[in-house]
């Protein structure tokens, strides 16, 4: 027999625990059932979907992360006090962050938990999506939550404790 270790967020562990309790099995048994089902029916997880999720959550190279935070710091310092998000997003540092493209989406989504306003426009520009419901327009925390929900539905792993 072999043993593997996997890292889980508190939120996922709690969900897993609840499901295991509901089924009256241990978490380990529940995970084993999932693995057995996957091995028995590998077609249920299409290669495209699996690869897509892996691609979305590929570890972002440290130099990209460092570049993002350096640009974000410059931008935050320069635009603090501006009233227009249009002006804020026209800043060269913000435009450079947008040009970094889809592989920084998980980083932007995770950062929304700390600063719900900052990356709404960048996410929209990068993804071309708008998950904001009409009644959420302008309600910044709800907008950030809508983006985080969108990210999870798209298969992005969003860090819980940024």
């Amino acid at each position, binding site marked *: 027999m072999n043993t593997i270790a996997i890292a889980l967020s508190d939120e996922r562990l709690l969900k897993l625990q609840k499901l295991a309790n509901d089924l009256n099995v241990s978490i380990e048994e529940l995970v084993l059932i999932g693995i057995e089902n996957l091995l028995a029916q590998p077609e249920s997880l299409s290669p495209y979907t699996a690869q897509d999720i892996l691609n979305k959550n590929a570890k972002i190279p440290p130099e990209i992360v460092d570049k993002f935070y350096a640009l974000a710091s410059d931008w935050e310092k320069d*635009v*603090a*006090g*501006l*009233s*227009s*998000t*249009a*002006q*804020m997003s026209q800043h060269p540092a913000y435009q450079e962050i947008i040009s970094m493209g889809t592989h920084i989406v998980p980083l932007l989504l995770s950062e929304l938990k700390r*600063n*719900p*306003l*900052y990356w*709404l*426009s960048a996410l*929209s520009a990068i993804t071309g999506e*708008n998950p*904001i419901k*009409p009644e959420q*327009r*302008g*309600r*910044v*925390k709800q*907008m950030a939550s809508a983006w985080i929900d969108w990210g999870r539905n798209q298969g992005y792993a969003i860090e819980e404790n940024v």
Partner: protein
Amino acid sequence: MYRRPEFEIKWPSLSRTDYQVTSPKSQEYNCFAWAAEEDDRWWQPIPGEQFYWPDGVPQEETIEAYIQAYQTLGYEICLGEGLEVGYQKIAIYVDSSGIPTHAARQLANGKWTSKLGWLEDIEHELDGLVGDRYGVVGQILKRAVN
């Protein structure tokens, strides 16, 4: 409340005028919402409908669109910035291209209240925010209040 030296770097006219910080920081509303007496949403006419903008008003960064937005709340164009009994006033600041950059609302004491982006609210003189960052006052609006 208190003054903030870093504000006087961003808005040098503040150092020559009277002002005070009147709230904590918040990312949940901006000056355009605060001028409309809202502190729970961010007003911005960005096409794509992510932020709030009054229904039926063009989503464009023009003084005309901002005037129309406040007209939905009963404001009308006005010439003077002085305190008028029975009226509430909003000042819209514009940059050198005439694009709105900021809005402030007049208080009953004749001073103005502004939300500074995602920073704090301040009570200030109208000239205190004139400068490179917000430009100049481009339009005053007023509405009757009870």
